[in-house]
């Protein structure tokens, strides 16, 4: 029959394997146990989303508050519509907030920067689920910028 030693070794092998999987999940992917947290969805229309991708971060002052859930093209006016899942912890953004597509570093990945607007004392309006954010600024496209720079210079001469 199999000896005790083999049983112990097989047991520790299995434990080691599960420990490795657990380390990959928690330490490397940093996923929280307990599944996805609650979130609510906001929409914003841009003229140009540049290199924004699904699952790009949404940041307020550098703190990640949510992720881009979906990007689609509005068929009526042909502008990109971005759906954003914001963590339910942050549910007090005034409806005058604005969003802009920003770039981390000069050539880094793009994310959405949300700037909270002023709070109107008279009417207490916060952004609710499925609201649209009207005040948006599009992505900075490097080619456009270079083009503006070149043509801007030639105008002055």
């Amino acid at each position, binding site marked *: *029959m*199999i000896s005790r030693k*083999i*049983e112990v*070794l*097989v047991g520790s*092998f*299995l434990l*080691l*394997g*599960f420990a*490795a*999987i657990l*380390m*990959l*999940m928690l*330490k*490397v*992917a*940093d*996923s929280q146990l307990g599944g996805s947290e609650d979130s609510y969805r906001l929409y914003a229309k841009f003229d140009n989303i540049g290199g924004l991708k699904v*699952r790009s*971060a949404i940041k307020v002052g550098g703190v990640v508050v949510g992720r881009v859930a979906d990007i689609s093209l509005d068929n009526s006016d042909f502008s990109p519509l971005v759906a954003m899942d914001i963590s339910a912890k942050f549910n007090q953004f005034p409806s005058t907030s604005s969003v802009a597509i920003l770039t981390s570093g000069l050539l880094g990945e793009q994310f959405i920067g949300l700037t909270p607007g002023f709070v109107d004392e008279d009417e207490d309006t916060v952004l609710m689920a499925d609201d649209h954010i009207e005040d948006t600024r599009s992505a900075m496209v490097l080619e456009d910028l270079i083009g503006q720079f070149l043509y801007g210079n030639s105008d002055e001469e």
Partner: protein
Amino acid sequence: MLTNTNTITSLGRQGLDFLAGAGRAGLMLLGALKPSGRGRKMVPLLIKQLYVVGVQSLTIIMVSGLFIGMVISLQGYTILVDYGAEQSLGQMVALSLLRELGPVVSALLFAGRAGSALTAEIGLMKATEQISSLEMMAIDPLHQIVAPRFWAGIISLPLLGAIFSAVGILGGHLVGVDWLGVDTGAFWSIMQSSVEWKEDILNGGIKSLVFAIVVTWIALHKGYDAVPTSEGISKATTATVVQSSLAILGLDFVMTALMFGS
């Protein structure tokens, strides 16, 4: 004219042989996975095979994982430092290990370390008439010999792949942070913000599982189907390593295209 006919005949025979071999492999697996009604008695056999297939492959998997992680880290650093992006080293090491190198290299090592041993063992059992003796005693050799080895392979390889990736990331950390001086906080946090457990870890696990099924199946079939001579066993062992390696690399491309292609 005669030679032409012979060529065509041999081509046809090869095709038929291939189909018959695939059929025998499928029947063998079906026979082995068929419920045998003696579930509890299988546990000691399975533990024995987990030891042979899993525990004994642990050393080579961990050592290779460590060195591969260290090499990716060293190579990645020399490239990334040119762009001032050496803090993304953790992301590069983790993603390349989890998505590709972990499942693929551990499966290749597994085919060489455990697959060849399975083939040789079963081939020798066949050559020494042990399989026929089991049948004489009314014990189904598929249940007694093939099934525990198959399950042991399927349980072991995904675990070995995960251990490979984990040790590789630690090796990458060793070289990148402790030797080359990348900031440890940036190493982990950029890795954590880019690695998704469904997208990367789960898909790597699926790859590992598919490789486990394919490699173990090929190894068992080659052994069970070997010509029972010393030459036949040597040919079967070679065929196991060659065919599983090709199958791993081919399937890896298909799965990568399906998982990450779009």
